[in-house]
């Protein structure tokens, strides 16, 4: 099974590493406590807790799934069900800059694939891959809800609108 999914940290035969200690740092703990106060049940706090975890570690590793499950009294399967449902939870480590190129309709007709292919070539990564230096991850995403200013590239949490290849190159110069 594993050979079918060579780079999947969640392949069925790759168990969470029990020796890896995962715990929120103090500041995140405080925010977690605050999140808990905002929801009627612990289960309801799952999404924001996962966002918090992603902010802390950059991605949701199998160990984090266990940790969050323990925090919220949920089984790891339930937590991972949610993680794998939403695209915005990273199931693999991502680079420092997560370049998310929208290739949905409006962006596509305004040549988003030019930007996407250019990025992959320039950074020499496979679609969805991360550069060797761990700086950039390039992925293709569905509509970012900003069709009026297509094409759109989201870098981590920021939108860069009305992009083209030249602007993208300029942006890469800044992101180092």
């Amino acid at each position, binding site marked *: *099974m594993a050979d*079918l999914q060579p780079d999947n940290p*969640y*392949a*069925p*035969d*790759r*168990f*969470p590493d029990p020796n890896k200690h995962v715990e929120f740092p103090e500041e995140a703990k405080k925010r977690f406590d605050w999140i808990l106060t905002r929801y009627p049940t612990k289960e309801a706090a799952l999404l924001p807790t996962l966002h918090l975890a992603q902010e802390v570690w950059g991605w949701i590793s*199998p160990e984090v*799934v266990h940790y969050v499950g323990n925090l919220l009294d*949920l*089984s*790891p*399967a*339930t937590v*991972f*069900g949610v993680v*794998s*449902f939403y695209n915005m939870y990273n199931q693999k480590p991502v680079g420092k800059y997560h370049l998310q190129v929208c290739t949905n309709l409006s962006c596509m007709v305004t040549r988003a694939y030019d930007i996407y292919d250019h990025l992959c070539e320039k950074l020499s990564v496979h679609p969805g891959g991360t550069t060797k230096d761990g700086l950039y991850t390039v992925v293709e995403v569905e509509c970012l809800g900003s069709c009026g200013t297509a094409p759109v590239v989201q870098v981590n949490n920021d939108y860069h609108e009305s992009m083209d290849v030249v602007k993208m190159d300029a942006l890469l110069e800044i992101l180092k």
Partner: protein
Amino acid sequence: MAKVTIDGNEVEVQDGINVIEAAKAADIHVPHFCYHPSLSVVGQCRMCLVEVEGMAKLQAGCATPVKDGMKIHVWNDKVDKARRGQMEFLLINHPLDCPICDKAGECPLQDYSFNYGNVDSRYGEFKRTYPGMDRTAIGPHVIQNMNRCIHCTRCIRFTAEITGTSELAFFKRGASTEVGVFPGTPLDNWMSACVTDICPTGALTPREFRFESRVWNLDVTESVCNGCDVGCNIFIGHRNGQVYRYRPRVNPDVNDHWLCDYGRFSYEQYETDRVVVPKVRTEDDYLGISTWDEALEAIGRAYRDAKNTFAILSAQMTNEEASAAKALFDRIGSRTGVMVDPIGPIKMKSRTEWLLGTQAGPNFRGVSKVIGDGANVDNLLTNGADGIDVLYICDALFSERAKDPAVIASLRKAKFLIVHSWDANHPLCDVADVLIPGAIHPEKEGTYTNLQGREQQIHQAFTPKGQAITDLDTFRRISERLFELAEVSA
């Protein structure tokens, strides 16, 4: 109460139950996949669509509570067409590999696709498959073939609502949605194999029964599990004197739709050498094969001038066997006692409450009631059977302790030892003076009294192996030999 008309039949049902349940009262079957009477309603499969007069659209039968005066159509053209459409969607991705599927023959999906499926498919694309997930062991007892899953979530709801362990969940979304376990957290709970019963397809099958037999080749006998004192109702699936599987038999008051794994697979203990002939110890201390006549003769001789006799009954006996034994041993003047091993506790969920099985035999309560104030067997095991002339052990498996060499030695202190056993490998067999072949529980007819005091019937699935007879017959033969024949010759 609500009066509703279902396909022209007027029935009176409880207010607020759903259409599927109401239709049952009218003896009408509403096809469905995701609805299960003991799980929450999710309305996910849309197979249960029915027409309710006065409502513009078809309604999901599982999620529509009945109201007084409702007129419901389960079988008409409109509903039929919807069902066909629904089936077509479900079969887009289903492999329909029934010839190599263990569920075939008892598979709702197969039945409905027989009724509603098209012979040929209008779907031109490739079927979705889950590479590497077609024979995945997701737990010690359950094998998953994700390609066959129709995403009804019954299994997920079972682990969430009944066992509360939530090992199963949906991963990913849309067309790639899969039922899975988290790596390192397998589907390993005490009732895990129940998901294979409730799965309406061959996606989840029990490892122990996979490819053992086609289900239509099995004979089915109603019985009761003898694993513990809950007494779950079961169907024994068997053929040619061999048990292939136990399956839960619905009883809302006891086990509802469930069985624990321990009980479900407890028939595996019968896959061992059986005692099939009586044996008697000869003068040169050899336990040799004998005829029934010789064995009974030996028993008769032993009891003839015995003063101090003791009989250990077993929690595995039926009430009828216990009564027969009690009558026999009272007439002989023998003391009787019974004991039971602790187990678990095994949790079992009836429709309304959790039952806790704590005894490793199905009928300790029934047998103790028959015996009344019995002698203490525990003492006997610990202190030894010194001074006892004849010790009669009605079932070698009356306690796990009887496998302990020290206990065997202390039991052997009795001058004469009679043992009933079906398990030829039981160490007590080797030390007996007379060994009587016993019957296993699928070979018996009778009743067990469970922890609620409910007397439940077990039925004989097949006749005892070889020259073995049921305990009932054995006690009858012994009492004939000891009393009737004695009277005749006197």
